[in-house]
């Protein structure tokens, strides 16, 4: 402060203060930014969702009173709008007959409430595809035979190599150490996140990432500790080049299962290649892909997997078709990263 007021005295003095001011400003941005961002973000997401989530029912102008009965075929609701069930269910048509049948099952099973009459409609026909509209996008999977083959290949790789190695690793390396390694690798990827946030025109998130990096390099002992989050509550803001391309308006092309790397798509596959040089580890050795940087990448993934063992198995158990489940989850997750951030 003193220097600022004694301006006449010293351009040199001013010069001294500048980097510190800049640093403070960055820290300030990092500190207040996320808080501000949340509030601002809240408004925009809300408006976005409110606009997109208009369900067919609201648009059709149903009143609240119509809604409970809307799934039952042949109810006034359907007639009002002229929306006829696409495939009228012949077998279920004598719905009255099954009323008593439902009477026993539903109220106790589902605790719907006292209105027995309403519960009888529970298993009635639906009037339309009752999606939220948000996720109901067309899936492009033209190279499905290749993808399916790769899916089975990766599945074998997981069960025969990846899982045993990660399990052994988890057993040998203590939890705390794995946590430190996780932080270290994540911190190393800060350039990737900063540059992609910048490319997306997201100065605020680039700022928080930069603040995170500075804090973790200093107070976090060179990135061993995620002090930005633990000490200051600054959240990382993930960004990669596939996401950047998405924000620029590129579609995902089509779904691709990469050998070893797993689910991806055309856009994110290209993104992976662009992000590789943004990882400092890529500069180990003479070539972009060599035993050092690829080795470190594998170690990073094993370390990561050691925290997530059992998730792939759970996904498989919870799916009627694990291949399709994985594809949908991947595409929706990526879409969410692009649209909602």
């Amino acid at each position, binding site marked *: 402060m003193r220097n600022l007021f004694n301006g006449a005295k010293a351009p040199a003095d001013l010069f001294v203060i500048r980097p510190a001011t800049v640093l403070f400003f960055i820290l300030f941005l990092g500190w207040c930014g996320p*808080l501000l961002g949340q509030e601002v973000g809240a408004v925009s997401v809300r408006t976005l969702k409110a606009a997109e*989530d208009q369900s067919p029912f*609201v648009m059709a102008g149903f009143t609240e009173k119509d809604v409970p009965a809307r799934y039952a075929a042949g109810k006034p609701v359907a007639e009002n709008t002229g929306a006829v*069930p696409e495939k009228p269910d012949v077998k279920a048509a004598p719905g009255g007959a099954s009323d008593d049948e439902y009477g026993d099952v539903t109220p106790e099973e589902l605790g719907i409430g006292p209105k027995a009459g309403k519960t009888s409609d529970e298993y009635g026909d*639906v009037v339309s595809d009752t999606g*939220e509209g948000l996720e109901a996008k067309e899936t492009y999977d033209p190279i499905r035979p290749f993808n399916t083959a790769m899916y089975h290949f990766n599945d074998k790789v997981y069960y025969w190599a990846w899982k045993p190695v990660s399990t052994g690793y988890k057993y040998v390396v203590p939890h705390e150490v794995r946590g430190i390694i996780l932080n270290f690798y994540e911190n190393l990827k800060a350039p990737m996140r900063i540059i992609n946030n910048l490319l997306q025109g997201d100065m605020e998130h680039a700022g928080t990432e930069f603040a995170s990096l500075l804090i973790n390099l200093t107070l976090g002992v060179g990135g061993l500790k995620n002090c930005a989050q633990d000490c200051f509550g600054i959240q990382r803001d993930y960004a990669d080049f596939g996401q950047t391309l998405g924000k620029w308006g590129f579609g995902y092309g089509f779904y691709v299962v990469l050998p070893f790397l797993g689910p991806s798509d055309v856009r994110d596959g290209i993104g992976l290649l662009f992000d590789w040089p943004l990882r400092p580890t890529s500069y180990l050795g003479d070539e972009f892909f060599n035993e050092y940087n690829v080795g470190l990448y594998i170690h990073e993934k094993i370390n990561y997997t050691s925290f997530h063992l059992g998730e792939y198995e759970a996904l498989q*158990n919870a799916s009627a078709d694990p291949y399709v489940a994985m594809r949908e989850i991947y595409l929706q997750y990526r879409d*969410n990263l692009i649209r909602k951030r």
Partner: protein
Amino acid sequence: MLKRLCAGLMVLIVVLAPMYLVAGPATDSVKANVTAVIDVLKDPKLKGPAGKKAKEQKIEVIADRMFDYVELSKRTLGLNWNKFTVDQRKEFVELFKGMLRDTYIDRITAYSNEQVNFTKELPLTENSVEVQTVVISSSARTPINYRAMKKGNEWKVYDVVIEGVSLVSNYRTQFRDILGNNPPQTLIDTLRKKKAGSK
């Protein structure tokens, strides 16, 4: 100066924050159920493998109260629901519920130290809302949103959106794939086989 500005902004944010945290009855309902699950998970009497079974049973009771499996099934099947006979619909609901229960209860009982923040309630339609939460563990923050609709006097959850991935939407594609070339019975058989295989 900057510090003061920062402090001022924070005060402003604290003052404004409640405007965005309008918790409605749906949030209260979801919150009550989620809190109940967390209480079960943290119950010291149910620690260890011996308590696992009891834990699972208690969580299942809460889940039955929380979810509307019929609504969930309808939304998952979409118009394909109409191709099922009433008996098939009932069996489907039971099998689907069983599959979700077996998987998720097993995953949930693995947790103990998570904290759940209820961030926002977002209106979707006249009688449905999205209750947004963030599950905070030592290593990650996972946004989990519950979509609930009003049934009588209660709010029932019919979809769960984890990190932008909707449960209903995910299963809808899987089932549509199967039902595209096969009769409803094939899907029911697939789920049955799944159930037999997991036991």
